[in-house]
């Protein structure tokens, strides 16, 4: 696989490219959902042949693998849409051949391809309920559910559990500060811990939503 092809995508997409992997006859480019169209657009300059979109239930999200053939070599642009959102931009206006593949992924996995020019029925019986995509399983984390409170607290405070208001009061009554001098009470220390969590991708493993400050789909 020509390295310049991958480098070209990385250059045009920028931070939206999460990971690349190149083998002899195959390359994988993992992108943020928001960067999908840019990545496909960058690949189109190499005149690829669209092959298929493979959708895979990945537990917390749906993996979408856009397969393209570039001169006999496979380039897979991969993105993951969160199950609670399950939405990604269509590429049908860029690659008309992707129409049926998007419709199939929409019906079977519940992915909404926003701005699809002509969404509609393709493979399921016409009376199949649209809110029950048959191949999308329930939300399933990589971590056991019973340990999720610990994971959430570790990421959000650096401690195994948050300090309860009752215990804060009891500590003060006992003449102690309301909390110990830990990462939970120091912005700089918490930032160090959270950078480590991101660097180790523990946040992804746990399914942590940084905007909401809690685990996804709780």
């Amino acid at each position, binding site marked *: 696989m020509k390295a310049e092809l991958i480098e070209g995508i990385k250059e045009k997409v920028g931070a939206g490219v999460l990971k690349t992997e190149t083998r002899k006859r195959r390359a994988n480019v993992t992108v943020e959902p928001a960067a999908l169209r840019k990545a496909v657009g960058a690949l189109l300059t190499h005149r690829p042949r669209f092959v298929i979109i493979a959708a895979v239930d990945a537990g917390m999200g749906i993996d979408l693998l856009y397969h393209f053939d570039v001169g006999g070599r496979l380039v897979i642009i991969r993105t993951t849409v969160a199950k609670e959102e399950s939405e990604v931009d269509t590429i049908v206006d860029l690659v008309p051949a992707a129409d049926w593949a998007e419709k199939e992924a929409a019906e079977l996995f519940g992915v909404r391809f926003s701005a699809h020019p002509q969404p509609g029925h393709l493979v399921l019986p016409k009376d199949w309920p649209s809110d029950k995509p048959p191949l999308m399983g329930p939300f399933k984390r990589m*971590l056991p559910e*019973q*340990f999720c409170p*610990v*994971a959430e607290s*570790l990421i959000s405070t*650096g*401690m*195994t*559990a948050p*300090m*309860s208001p009752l*215990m804060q009061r*009891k*500590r003060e*009554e*006992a*003449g*102690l500060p309301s*909390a*110990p*001098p*830990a*990462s939970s009470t*120091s912005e*700089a*220390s918490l*930032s*160090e*811990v959270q*950078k*480590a*969590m991101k*660097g*180790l991708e*523990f946040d992804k*493993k*746990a399914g942590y939503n940084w905007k909401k400050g809690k685990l996804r789909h709780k």
Partner: protein
Amino acid sequence: MKYALFLGCMIPQRIPSVELAEKKVFEKLGVDAPELQGYSCCPDSVVARLLDKKMWLTLAARNLSLAEQQGLDLLVLCNGCYETLVEAKEILKRDPQAAKEAGEILAKAGMKYAGKARVRHVVEVLYEDVGVEKIKKLSKPLKLKLAVHPGCHMFRESDGGDIWRKPKQFEELVRATGAEVVNSKLDRLCCGFPMMQVNEEASLKQTLLPKLADYQELGVDGIVVSCPACNIQFETGQVLLRKYGARYNIPCLHLVELLAIAFGFSAEELALNVHRSPVPQLVQKVG
């Protein structure tokens, strides 16, 4: 004698009386133990380690490097924190790849792990650095029969050392207060705390209950532990066992709380009412 005190999560969040007792006891004994600033969970040696070993190792390395920055050894009041920090230190010493990976993450936060800080359990510090004689001199002899539960992680020893070293020291420290140590045939049985996370009934009925029954039969006045997780298990476990028809009400306290009581501090001064077992009543018994 100066150390960086690693408080961990459970003591400040669940049993702050241990934090109070530690301050009073160390002051009496001339131990300078400023709290480690900005630490995170050790992280815990059972659940967090299973969730993600790299995360576990990196956060432990960060905590160790915080003590290094101060040029101090770590003083730990919890068996779980002790195991994590000791084992993480060993892994970082023996596994160059793991050390490299953790080091890269720490470097992004401008931190560096060099492996210089030692990890000392409070039992080691009290026995080896302070000495039993000093504790005996300061103690008002307690006329109590006490069970000792060293806890599983206290048996961890690096470099092929004697696994009974710290548990024996622990017993000696309890004896230094004048209390009688009553040994149970189930002393080495786990309290069941880790199992509570996956099977509450088995944890309570198969591990905690037999221990409590034996302690009751031996007529102990209380149980001394050196780990907040064991302490919580003995206390909340006795409450939860009521739904299975088992009624026990044995006081359970941390070693530093026992020492503080022996040094003459009152239940109020130590805020022992945060316990869920009748620890304040134990102090009344002492008079």
